[in-house]
């Protein structure tokens, strides 16, 4: 239960969280927080099934990426395994006009925005730094420096206000993603200051996956993270981050508040990073198997499958088909990754400045001459 004391579900952390679907796949009709805010969802059967499809698809694509990395086809991969519900729910909660500022792990959000999942693979393969047009996709480039994107999001949101694009259901809202570790960064807290002072149309979406690489949550805070918002004068809500329905309901409500001109909200999605931090990491050095096991029981997909099954919203044919479709997509992704051309060496001199620079131009020319001479020589 958000900000409240009562708990929902045996699996809730102290202080509770908003949960609309239990780990066992039971639907909770609605949750009313201590502040009197009620959260619920109403989806058609088809919409429920599509949410399931999203969850399975993003997990499957993620698994493919992990495999590609192991096979040496990607330089690194930051897996979202375990965080599918947080990402799919919040991503689907966005409206068309909303803008997202991701970290390096929001592949699931990206997918739900309707963006071709290949988009971030240039970054992870090492052929580019993630070069797309944020305004075209309403999805900023991945940000690797922890926390910096929260200020970008806040500035963008200030611009939304200045453009007069808040104050009604057609208004625009902005969502900034970040992790539990990021909450310690000064810049993130400055974003909280700014969003409060300018009443910006912002949702701060914190995926608390319990770890910042090896460091457990206690290294970042001694109280639940959602309570940080109170210190800056806006609401903080904790959700069961493994419950796609809670993620959807609370994010949708917060985004709508923002677009209506009611200012920012912090959402803490309480979840778990099931895999390594990235493919370079070895989590066995800092956490015990039983902890991972206990989170397996809260898996976002199996609970949703259980729900669909119990409610007879889907059958094995459907599940099989979803798996099959996801597999096709994944294989397609694999092909696209393998087909990615390496950048031209000379391209390292491109896109340094919109207006160019004589220094860079001179170096480009020198480089070209050197390359040419080289190719001409015995080497």
């Amino acid at each position, binding site marked *: 239960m958000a900000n409240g004391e009562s708990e929902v579900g045996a699996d809730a952390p102290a202080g509770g969280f908003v949960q609309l679907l239990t780990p066992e796949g039971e639907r909770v009709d609605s949750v009313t927080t201590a502040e009197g805010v009620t959260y619920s969802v109403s989806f058609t059967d088809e919409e429920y099934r599509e949410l399931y499809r999203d969850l399975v698809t993003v997990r499957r694509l993620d698994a493919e990426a992990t495999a590609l990395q192991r096979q040496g086809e990607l330089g690194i991969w930051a897996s979202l395994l375990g965080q599918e519900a947080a990402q799919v729910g919040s991503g689907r909660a966005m409206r068309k006009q909303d803008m997202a*500022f991701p970290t390096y792990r929001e592949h699931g959000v990206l997918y739900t925005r309707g963006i071709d999942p290949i988009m971030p693979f240039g970054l992870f393969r090492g052929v*580019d*730094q*993630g*070069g*797309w*047009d*944020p*305004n*075209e996709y309403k999805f*900023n*480039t991945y940000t690797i*420096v922890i926390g*910096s994107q*929260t*200020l*970008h*999001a*806040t*500035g*963008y*949101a*200030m*611009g*939304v206000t*200045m*453009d007069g694009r808040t104050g009604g259901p057609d208004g625009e809202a902005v969502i900034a993603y970040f992790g539990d570790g990021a909450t310690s960064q*000064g*810049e993130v807290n*400055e*974003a909280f*200051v*700014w969003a409060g*002072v300018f009443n910006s149309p912002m949702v701060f979406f914190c995926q608390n996956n319990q770890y910042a690489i090896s460091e457990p949550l206690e290294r970042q805070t001694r109280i639940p993270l959602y309570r940080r918002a109170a210190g800056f004068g806006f609401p903080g809500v904790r959700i069961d981050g493994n419950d796609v329905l809670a993620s959807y309901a609370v994010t949708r409500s917060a985004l709508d508040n923002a677009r209506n001109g009611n200012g920012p909200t912090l959402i803490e999605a309480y979840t778990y990073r099931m895999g390594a931090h990235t493919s370079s990491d070895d989590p066995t050095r800092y956490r015990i198997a039983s902890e991972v096991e206990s989170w397996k029981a809260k898996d976002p997909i199996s609970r949703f499958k259980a729900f669909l099954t119990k409610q007879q919203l889907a059958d094995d044919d459907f599940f099989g088909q979803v798996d099959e479709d996801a597999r096709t997509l994944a294989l397609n992704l694999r092909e696209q990754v393998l087909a990615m051309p390496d950048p031209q060496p000379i391209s390292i001199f*491109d*896109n*340094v*400045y*919109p*207006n160019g*620079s*004589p*220094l*860079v131009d001179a170096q480009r020319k020198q480089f070209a001459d050197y390359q040419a001479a080289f190719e001409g020589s015995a080497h």
Partner: protein
Amino acid sequence: MSETLTLGKALNHGLRRALENDPKVVIMGEDVGKLGGVFRITDGLQKDFGENRVIDTPLAEAGIVGTAVGLAIRGYRPVCEIQFDGFVFPAYNQIVAQVAKMYYRSLGNVRLPIVIRIPYGGGIGAVEHHSESPEAYFSHTPGLKVVTCSNSADAYSMIQQAITSDDPIIFFEPKRRYWEKGEVDLSLAPQDAYPLHSSRVAREGGDATLIAYGPMVRVALDAAEAAAEDGRNLEVIDLRSLSPLDLDPVYASVRKTGHAVVVHEAPGNLGLGAEIAARITEECFYSLEAPVLRVTGYDVPYPAARVEEEYLPDLDRVLDAVDRSFGW
């Protein structure tokens, strides 16, 4: 339409023009609104353009630059004021890791037409952190452009050119020259003014080349005056653009004079003088009659006000270097 204006007032006029010419231009920073900035560079602008165009921000430099990035992604052209040179460092991460790199990162998809104005340099009798010259930290950073002005006319035009440029630009303002007067043609459109990234011969001479920028141009010109009395004709080049450097006029001058002295306030070690000396030597190796000499701040933290004159390059130290060059 030429008027006599202080450098500070010329900047104020330039900012006003920029606000008039493009509704997407916004000014943001600490105390830039009601107060008009601690140096009054933004005086009267909030009154005339409103709180959405001239924004008093929370006291946090990373926030100023970080939100400017977001505003730029949204289509705005933010002009950030950093109150003093020594207070830009909380924003350093945003500047070097985000502002400088987003165009590259996004393969040219994101332009950040951000100008970061920084009053810099010493000589105003201030306490710590109020007199520094951090330009090398930015000039060494690919993706940023860095400029500085030395007189009212340049101040007026260059600030407008910087704002209309799509490149992210660090705009260093020689704070101790804010009160110096000069002629400004207020009718000059930025596109008709001297190009932003070009250096300029501020005084012609054939015996030795003085290279300076920002607050030191006046010192170099005074030194040249004094040298002229002794029959030595010094050429003075005002760099104006610190990144990229425009050194062709410098090379031409050095090929003529054979002697070069670079002057800046920043500490010498890895200051701009190092790069300029290295490049001059590479380009003019056979013309140099002496190594390029540097007259700079010493490699110590900026000292207390009562001894800052000892720290700052002055006319005598410049002339001494010229003498040393001739005596090499």
